[in-house]
């Protein structure tokens, strides 16, 4: 895996891909207001691999849903490719989704168990405007996408997603992204439900895919070690706020915020006793 390790790139001057100003989301349950995401500012550049790191409940997933347009923000503005994001109608939303796609945390619940794998992949081809392509061409495209993630389409066709293993499902998810070729990929803890061996393969494929189609990847994780390993820049999130952000080396090697320091010290190290005092 080390051969494919991403070379960290400085993309601070690349054009902005997704930018947010004071993005906020509150949830109201009776009189209690939960500030899931509280006035965060961010700027993701084209081609960058950004990690958003935080513990459970820090608002990562809420933020990702807002970025995807699945959840309305309470306050703040999001800019897509420099222009204010307009998702006011279904057609515009559909247009937006052709530019941003996601991989979810739990592969077992990401697929509709009543649809065959073919349906999932055909949907992607249709979305890219390939609805009227001849059947052979569609099969060729699906085969290509599957072989990119080391799956054999001939074995998968006419099967249901629940017949696959978790790792296979998550790879199928990547195959879906391969077909869709979005500008931004939002990966919400794509490896947290996968065993360690498959995890490396999946990350490897994600990075390969990024290099191949040059998309921006927003990687959401609780694993700061993993984030350091793959990211160009890192945002540290605590209680709905970004407490620290910047290039990966800067954030990890020279952390400023106490929360970042705690996160880094919480990473278990094989050759040292684990410091539990900060937990």
């Amino acid at each position, binding site marked *: 895996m080390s051969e494919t390790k991403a070379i960290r790139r400085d993309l601070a001057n690349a054009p902005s891909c997704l930018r947010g100003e004071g993005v906020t989301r509150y949830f109201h349950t009776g009189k209690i207001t939960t500030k899931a995401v509280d006035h965060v500012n961010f700027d993701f550049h084209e081609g960058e691999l950004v990690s958003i790191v935080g513990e459970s409940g820090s608002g990562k997933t809420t933020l990702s849903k807002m970025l995807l347009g699945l959840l309305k923000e309470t306050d703040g503005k999001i800019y897509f490719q420099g222009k204010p994001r307009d998702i006011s109608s279904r057609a515009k939303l559909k247009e937006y*989704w052709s530019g941003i796609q996601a991989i979810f945390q739990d592969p077992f619940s990401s697929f509709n168990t009543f649809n065959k794998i073919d349906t999932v992949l055909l949907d992607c081809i249709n979305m890219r405007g390939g609805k009227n392509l001849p059947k052979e061409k569609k099969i060729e495209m699906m085969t290509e996408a599957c072989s990119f993630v080391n799956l054999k389409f001939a074995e998968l066709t006419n099967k249901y997603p629940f017949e696959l293993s978790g790792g296979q499902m998550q790879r199928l998810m990547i195959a879906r992204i391969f077909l869709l070729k979005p500008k931004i990929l939002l990966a919400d803890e794509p490896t947290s439900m996968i065993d360690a061996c498959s995890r490396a393969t999946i990350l490897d494929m994600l990075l390969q895919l990024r290099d191949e189609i040059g998309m921006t990847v927003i990687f959401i994780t609780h694993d700061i070690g993993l984030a350091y390993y793959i990211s160009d820049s890192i945002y540290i999130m605590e209680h709905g706020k970004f407490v620290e952000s910047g290039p990966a080396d800067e954030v990890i090697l020279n952390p400023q915020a106490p929360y970042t320091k705690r996160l880094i010290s919480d990473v278990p190290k094989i050759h040292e006793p684990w410091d539990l005092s900060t937990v």
Partner: protein
Amino acid sequence: MKNTLRQVFHSSKFLVGFIIFVAILLTMFIYPLINPGNPLEMIGVGTFARPGTYVSLYDAAKTPTETLRLADADDKRLAKQLSDEDRVAMVEWFSATGVDIEGLDISDTDALLELWRANYDPAVKPKGMTQAKRNYYKRLDAAIKEVGAADTLIIADTGEGGALEKQGAITKTDYVNVGQVANVKILPLGTDNFGRDVLKELVSAAGTSIVIGLLAGLVATLIGLSLGLLSGYVGGICDDIIMFITNIFTVIPGFVLLILISYSIGQEQRGAAVVALVIGLTSWTWTCRSVRSQVISLRNRDHVNLSKLSGHSLFRIILTDILPYIASYVVMAFILQVSSGILAEAQLSLLGLGPKTTEVPTLGLMMNWAMLYSAHTNGSWWAYFPVILTITLISFSLNLMNTGLDQVFNPTLRD
């Protein structure tokens, strides 16, 4: 799908319910083939003929006879003729005249008659007994003597001069073979107040009631399902409006609403289908509420989000990503709606607000007729008890199927 079906049929509860229901359905289809004709045809002139085999007397008299000498024939004849009231009256006579009746069993015809023949004297006037009562005892005594005497029944016809001419005679030892009598009618459940064959009517009524239940269940489930899906998935103002309407319907007692609507439609317009529609239109609320809550828990799942990201339309997401996940629940709700639809029809008809009475019988109408002609007070159990049993069986089988399905689809309920 195949696996699910196998699992469903492995549930003993579902299987028992299913077998009962299928048996009722099969009876509905097969019985009219065996016994065709209009179920509302009034074959009897009197009301409430008892269940049993009816032999045409006319045809029996014309049928060739066989002579059988049966020793207990007279006793049986007497036993049949002496009603319970007669027996009690005989005991009253004994006690009024001071006869020792120690250890006498009034169902023992021989002992009773022996005592009667030994002690009855028409000349005795027991103290306090009215003339009418004494005349009754005289008639009773005459009847007992007549049965004992070797009599024949003479069949006569008016001859040329208007005088009766003997055509033939029937002796007590004449028997006919029932198989040779031209007209024998078996009425397993007798006739009702209009002289209609209850069994034939019941089979037809069960069919109509099940159709009403199915139609009402279908209407209720369709309305409840579509409103529930819409309100649960779309949410927001749409949810508020639909829940407002649902709450209004929930607050007004459904049955009162049902009575008012049925009443306002009027007897003439109230066919079976209209009644089914009215029942369906007033009972969709709880399906709507429960579908809505199921959809709310489903709409934020990842597979729905993925479907949204794939650009699917609202309609398609509801149809392919939500509906299949709640399908098993909807089927169960439908079964319960059918069951409650049948019961609602019975309740309405019992109040006289059911379908019009001239076209088809329903289970509720049969109960209504039995009640109006006081079958329950005059002991004509066959006019209402089989109806109650049928309603119970149908609703029991449907509920059993529902419980069985529940156990298959809700693993936490499995024991």
